[in-house]
């Protein structure tokens, strides 16, 4: 056919360009990006873009007043932070210092030899380690070496409630046990409100319920074994018991019927709670400031309650255990050009000034000196409650989606959401988690 011939030419051209494309791919990755390729007299800090940036920017400005090598703060719009980081980290455009969640969020980079172990820094200045709560600091320890210095704050997950809704439904304060929770669900249903607000469309809020029930029933060990590679634990009796309890909770109508269409990230689930259409919401500690911004009168009236996750009778996990974002960390690229500047910058993370400013905007740094600044917080009671939880927790489980490398996140979120919506049963969930 005539047309076949007319397509030959582009095919030949394509072959030529193919060689070019290959050599391009090769050269962009072959050479270790030498330190000399990096910008002169600049240290780039890549950080998750949100409200905390103002404090960080002020800190950077102050640091630059006395430093010859200037720190440059690059903020990446929140939702896209991880993609951005993964794309640039092995190129000349990589930052010197970057924000992360510790755990699985940095293991791939450690394995690839991209990160600098911080043990030398810590030897020079032991405060880089001693100034932080140990349970938090260890989240960024990989294979016995420290790869991250805690920054910003800790974000445990807790049970938020609308006290007015609870009272009018005849629920007597926050439930302390699982049975009390189930009882409260029935009463709230009878009162015609959604018992528990859940941003199921975001998927990750669902994960919080699974994490806590597993922790209470089986203790943190089950997940740790799974993470270490023993996937058989997902099929254990305890795992099935936890799943059974979750199934019972969902089927009882605790989350209403339309939770798959509700989001936390557009304010949907938080509004359910603050407007009195729901009794509870399980959420990270940031929910407090979310409500403060979106519904200040709800917080001021004292209707916003917060408590620990209920205990589960006969469960192995300590009732004081926490799950959530242990902390945020700064990690350092191995090929940074100015390690001394980097070290000096990291020292600011435990400085009184920085801690104080973080507390003032509602973050809760986990330094040993945090406690003395809690009174300066916007809501000292809440800050103290939260700090007490973290300080006394025997175990603080990093969110599963942060504990695994980022590549596993879609599968984890998918399994949670499918299980809650009934698209998969216990066996399907177990198979999905074993497949990670």
């Amino acid at each position, binding site marked *: 056919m005539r047309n076949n011939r007319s397509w030959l030419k582009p095919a030949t051209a*394509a072959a030529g*360009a*193919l060689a*070019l*494309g*290959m050599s*391009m*791919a090769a050269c962009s*990755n*072959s050479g270790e990006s030498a330190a000399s390729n990096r910008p002169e007299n600049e240290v780039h800090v890549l950080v998750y873009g949100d409200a905390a940036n103002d404090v960080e920017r002020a800190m950077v400005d102050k640091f630059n007043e006395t430093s010859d090598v200037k720190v440059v703060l690059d903020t990446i719009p929140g939702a896209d932070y991880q*993609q951005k980081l*993964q*794309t640039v*980290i*092995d190129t000349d455009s990589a930052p010197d210092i970057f924000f992360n969640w510790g755990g699985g969020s940095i293991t*791939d*980079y450690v394995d*690839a030899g*991209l990160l600098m172990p911080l043990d030398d820094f810590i030897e020079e200045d032991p405060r880089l380690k001693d100034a932080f709560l140990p349970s938090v600091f260890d989240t960024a320890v990989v294979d016995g070496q420290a790869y991250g210095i805690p920054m910003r704050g800790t974000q445990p997950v807790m049970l938020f409630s609308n006290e007015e809704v609870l009272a009018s439904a005849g629920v007597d304060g926050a439930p302390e046990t699982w049975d009390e929770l189930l009882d409260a669900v029935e009463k709230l249903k009878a009162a015609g409100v959604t018992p528990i607000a859940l941003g*199921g*469309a975001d*998927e990750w809020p669902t994960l919080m319920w699974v994490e806590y029930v597993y922790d209470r029933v089986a203790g943190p060990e089950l997940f740790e074994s799974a993470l270490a590679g023993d996937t058989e634990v997902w099929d254990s009796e305890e795992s099935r018991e936890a799943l059974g309890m979750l199934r019972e909770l969902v089927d009882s109508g605790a989350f*209403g*019927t*339309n*939770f*798959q*269409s*509700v*989001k936390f990230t*557009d304010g*949907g689930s938080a*509004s*359910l709670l603050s407007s009195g*259409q729901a009794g509870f919401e399980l959420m990270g500690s940031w929910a407090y400031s979310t409500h403060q911004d979106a519904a200040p009168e709800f917080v001021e009236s004292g209707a916003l309650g917060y408590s620990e996750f209920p205990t589960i009778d006969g469960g192995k996990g300590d009732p004081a255990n926490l799950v959530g974002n242990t902390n945020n960390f700064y990690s350092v690229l191995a090929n940074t050009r100015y390690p001394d500047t980097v070290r000096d910058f990291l020292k600011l993370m435990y400085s009184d000034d920085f801690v104080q400013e973080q507390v003032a905007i509602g973050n809760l740094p986990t330094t040993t000196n945090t406690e003395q600044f809690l009174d300066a917080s916007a809501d000292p009671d809440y800050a103290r409650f939260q700090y007490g939880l973290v300080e006394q927790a025997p175990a603080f489980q990093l969110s599963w989606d942060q504990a695994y490398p*980022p*590549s596993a*996140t*879609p599968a984890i979120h*998918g399994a949670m*959401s*499918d299980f809650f*919506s009934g*698209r998969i049963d216990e066996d399907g969930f177990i198979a999905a988690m074993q497949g990670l």
Partner: protein
Amino acid sequence: MTALLPPKPPALPDGSERVRPAAAGRSARSTRPGLAWTLPATVFFLLFAVIPLIAVVVLSFMSWRGIGEPKFVGMENWQELAGDPVMLKSLWLSLLFIVLGVATQTPVSMLLGVWAAGPQRNRAVLSAIYFVPLLLSSAAISVLWRALLDPNFGVPSQFRWLFGDGNLFGHQATAIGVIIFVSMWQFTPFHTLIYQGAARAIPQVLYQAAEIDGAGRARTFFSITLPQLRNSIITSVILMVVGGLTTFETVLILTNGGPGTDTTITAFYMFEQAFRRFDFGIGAAVALVLVIVATTISLIMVKVSGYDKMRSTLEGV
């Protein structure tokens, strides 16, 4: 201004495609631009679109997570995709999106376009309002509609008799419906303008003749308006197909591919593989599948419609 041009004589016989019709005139030959005129655009396009595309081909045979060296793994990515139920499902969903997109946008935009082509003054004002969605980015439109469709605070909460509990994003059919509707909201203005322009250019004599023949409105539409809009329909449908295949932000923000993988179309699946699982090799392979499907569909449409051979758009009227 095109309406001022006299109607053209009937189409040139098909099959004479590569021989210039003698009517084009030998004397005009000297004013014909040479190939050099195509160079800047072609080179530019090669550099920034085609070369990256070729790199995607190479990448689809590699294993790479963005860090370290990419490794050649032969057909491994392709074998994995071939056995991946989500991949196949995503292709069916993409086709479904295209079909539904064309089926919803074409009648509405044609109806609106023909109506707006009429002479009344208020139509100009309305047309201006219709156009506004085109000024918004897909991301903004999706954020807007996501807030509007919140089951507890948005439109569904005001119309319980219609939406029930408002769990629009919890079922496949309604989730697809939402995406199709929002795409329609966004793109109908564009297609309306195409039809408006075309309808305005239909010679009024044809309608006058039909009126004399005593043809009803429906018959006039089907025997005059519709055939006269043929080229516009082709253009519009091609653009809808391409738009449907590459729908991305809308899915990301409205449904995130869910519930489950029920709205994971191929373009979104590519994003998920490359930027959420950080498997750039598989992501590249999915991207190629997308390009191959899109190319095949465009080729078929171009062939069937004879688009590339049209000497003048008035041809075939």
